[in-house]
């Protein structure tokens, strides 16, 4: 049973560029959440997708957008990258009736130069 997978593992981008990160949820899960984790800090909630719609959003600007596909996989898009966007981006999946029991992927390390 595959767990949560994310791609790519690492990414280096330049300020002003755009990036797309991908996530496949754990088998059977239909709810996907995205988090940003800066070095030394706890994960910060970006948004959650369920039934292909964004259900909740954290305190992140509109430069951060996402999408969920019919197979429950998801993408996180970040436009106009800033140096401060450098972080580990985590994807987590869960059942809708147990959203606090989340299964996290290994993350994508994004470096903006």
């Amino acid at each position: 049973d595959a767990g949560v997978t994310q791609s790519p593992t690492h990414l280096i981008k330049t300020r002003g560029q755009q990036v797309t990160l991908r996530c496949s949820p754990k088998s059977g899960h239909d709810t996907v959440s995205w988090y940003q984790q800066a070095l030394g800090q706890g994960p910060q909630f970006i948004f959650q997708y369920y039934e292909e719609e964004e259900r909740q959003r954290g305190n992140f600007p509109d430069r951060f957008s996402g999408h969920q596909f019919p197979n429950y996989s998801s993408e996180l898009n970040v436009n106009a990258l800033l140096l401060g966007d450098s972080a580990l981006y985590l994807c987590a999946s869960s059942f809708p009736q147990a959203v606090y029991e989340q299964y996290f992927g290994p993350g994508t390390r994004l470096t903006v130069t």
Partner: protein
Amino acid sequence: LAKTTQPISMDSYEGQEVNITCSHNNIATNDYITWYQQFPSQGPRFIIQGYKTKVTNEVASLFIPADRKSSTLSLPRVSLSDTAVYYCLVGDRRNTGGFKTIFGAGTRLFVKA
């Protein structure tokens, strides 16, 4: 959303029992208490979840007093591999409109030989 307070760090030795307490004074009736473990450069891992009294699994025990304003994660006989950051989260585990996972700074546990 219930705010949580945990110690910033704790030290222990191999073989000892470690208890990490989390305060959540404004916990709501429908809120559950969930703990995650995170190793460096990895996504958090779900450890345990509870609502009241005591919950035990193969990894840890969770003690919740009757007023539910705090909870204690107990790790029996820790080993060096238990060195990690531990997060306490509180919230309604259903996928309700108010869902936003809030990770604080967590508790950094250092296990020494």
